[in-house]
């Protein structure tokens, strides 16, 4: 804009507001000012409101004793723990249910997505009914269903249903024996690690050999065998023992074993089943996006069905599937916050619920909660951008 009046061959003067650059700057200043004053107004109001209610602000409360119970926690937790620890417990509980949910939803979703494309009428209809039913009912309603209508109507502890393998299910969740491996069992883990490394080496070797001599090697079956046989052998030789601590009915509840509370189970079922219906649609779309000509070209080159899928169809379908799949994973993680409605102690419940109510630090608690989700999203989209940059098909 300074360049305008700097030149010797000055253009005919325009009314300053008709210069697009100046106009842009004016717009931006106006919008910026409005936004800043709006924020200032909010801050002012908030400060006044907080002062009127005699409330202080700040994050010092994080180091105070929380003094409440959390029904389910992977980290050590007692009433003497601090709010910061409560925050961490909330995060781990969110991540736990999200992680297991993602695994289950992926398996279920891929199965159903592929089933929808089946030429078998019954199988594809079943898959369609699943998708069209599940994704058109609110997740919260499904959580209520699993929690109140299914898991909470289980019998009382005294009348628990017995499941196979010394497990029980009742109002308080599922109880199953806790495996207690002895010291020797460490060798089995080492054996498993060695087997995994071995399989990776084997795959590389098989690939190299194929490239060098053209001979194929049954990698999949051999890998499976190595993964199973090696740890089993080590187990036998080392004489490692696994004891089981079964749940035993005590006076009021089961003692020993592992308990999965109904809140966790309901949230896990709900999240996995709901998200699977969206993943199934993603998978179906991805597979359908691969042009039929690709199959025909691969067929006419003589590639067998397995190779056709592995080398031609799946790599192309995955490019289409992975980006929306990740956003489904992110959705699942965000949706795990609905656990708050059925009492699962995930981040929102613990921190924007209990901790907020006890401390009254609304702004701090909600901001920290949102920050966690924000970081998770940013991380995911960073990974996605990296992936997309790697796999985007090069076009002219």
């Amino acid at each position, binding site marked *: 804009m300074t360049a305008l009046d700097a030149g010797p061959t000055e253009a005919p003067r325009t009314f300053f507001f008709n210069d697009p650059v100046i106009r842009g700057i004016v717009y931006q200043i106006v919008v910026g000012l409005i936004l800043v004053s709006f924020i200032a107004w909010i801050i002012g109001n908030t400060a006044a409101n907080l002062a009127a209610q005699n409330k202080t602000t700040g994050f010092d409360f994080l180091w105070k004793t929380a003094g409440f119970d959390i029904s389910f926690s992977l980290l050590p937790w007692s009433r003497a723990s601090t709010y910061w620890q409560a925050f961490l417990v909330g995060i781990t509980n969110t991540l736990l249910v999200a992680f297991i949910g993602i695994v289950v939803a992926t398996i279920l979703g891929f199965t159903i997505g592929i089933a929808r494309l089946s030429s*078998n009428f019954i199988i594809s209809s079943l898959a369609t009914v699943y998708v069209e039913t599940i*994704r*058109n009912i*609110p997740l919260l309603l499904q959580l209520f269903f699993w929690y109140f209508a299914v898991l909470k109507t289980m019998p009382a502890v005294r009348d628990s249903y017995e499941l196979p393998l010394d497990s029980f299910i009742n109002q308080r969740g599922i109880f199953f024996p806790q495996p207690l491996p002895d010291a020797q069992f460490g060798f089995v883990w080492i054996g498993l690690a060695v087997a995994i490394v071995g399989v990776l080496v084997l795959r590389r070797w098989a690939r190299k050999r194929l490239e060098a001599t053209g001979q194929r090697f049954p990698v999949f079956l051999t890998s499976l065998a190595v993964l199973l046989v090696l740890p089993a052998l080590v187990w036998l030789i080392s004489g490692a023992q696994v004891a089981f601590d079964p749940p035993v009915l005590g006076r009021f509840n089961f003692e020993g074993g592992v308990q999965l509370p109904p809140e966790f189970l309901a949230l896990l079922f709900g999240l996995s089943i709901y998200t699977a219906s969206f993943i199934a649609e993603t998978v179906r779309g991805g597979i359908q996006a691969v042009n039929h000509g690709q199959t025909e070209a691969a067929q006419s080159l003589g590639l067998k069905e397995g190779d056709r899928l592995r080398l031609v169809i799946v790599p192309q379908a995955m490019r289409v599937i992975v980006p929306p799949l990740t956003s489904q994973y992110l959705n699942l993680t965000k949706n795990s916050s*609905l656990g708050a409605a059925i009492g699962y102690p995930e981040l*929102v419940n613990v921190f924007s619920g209990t901790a907020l109510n006890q401390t009254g630090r609304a702004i701090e608690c909600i901001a920290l909660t949102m920050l966690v989700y924000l970081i998770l999203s940013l991380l995911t989209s960073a990974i996605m951008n990296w992936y997309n940059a790697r796999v985007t098909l090069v076009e002219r």
Partner: protein
Amino acid sequence: MTDTGYVRSELVAAKPAPNPTSGAVVWAKKNLFATPMDALLTAFGVLFLLWVVPPFFNFVLGHAVGPMGTVEECRAITAGACWAYVYNEMEFFIYGFYDIPQLWRPNIVFALGALLFVPLLIPKLPFKRINALLFLFVYPVVAYFLLAGGVFGLSEMPTEKWGGLLVTLIISVVGITLAFPLGIVLALGRQSTLPVIKTICVTFIELIRSVPLITILFMASIMLPLFMPQGMTVDKLLRALVGVTLFTSAYLAEVVRGGLQAIPRGQYEAAASLGLGYWQRMYFIILPQALKHVIPGIVNSFIALFKDTSLVYIVGMKDLLEAVKTKNDSALEWQSANTATTGYLFAAIVFWAFCFSMSRYSMFMERRLNTGHKR
């Protein structure tokens, strides 16, 4: 075959295929028993259906207590739904605590809404513009005064008394209507070349999209009153609407952006070369095309919003799901083994019916738009 060539003297008439190509048996062979694996899957599927369908059917109809049944009957059965409960609480599920003698008011609102909204959905019907203007600007005012009262001798009905399906519909329809213009502005802002405006829009969109709706509703519920000048209270319904609108606008902005990106460059250039200003270009040329393109995406956002209204219990509103849950937990006079399940089943059916028909509508529009483009 000879070297001197060959000419067919008589055309071969079409004859039927050697094996029958239609009929139940052929169909079954192709779709159920094509390979041994298929036969196995079919058997598996049939077993699954036998396992699931009869109990479900019995629960919903076979062993269920009908709408005219009594609670004693409901308590006597264990394997059937208690529809009498739903029938008796229907008013609460649909209107919440709205005074029963005044129910004609929400009913008129429902009827007017359907009357104005349904023609909007049918592409063939004329007067779209007037219809839309009536629905967007006149109807909300009429509906508000009818529902809230306090004028024209209508008794006052505070929003605390509104509930059930009424609230679900109000929040989702008002939410999408308010979020729509906001979403368009955000999408345009995101495309803008002005860095300040672009940054503001991108930050808002990405921030909102990265957090769960429930945290935004927490904010609306707890922090919105703090943000307001002292002594000013924010109605709960309004809190829910603010939260839901902000949330939806960010998602709509992304939908609209998709549409804007699908418009070929030539359209922008042609509009500019006609000498139209920025807003004229957008209003007359770009947005009409972009929005038409993303109608399915908008409908899908609406479906998501409709399901998400079930979260407004956070701010203390009793939407359909919360109304059902409240009765499930508190209607002691209806307590029986399957009362709660029946209540949730009812809510599920209502939500499903709305969402499913909307998703079919979105598919219908998608097909229409696709063929429209090929021509």
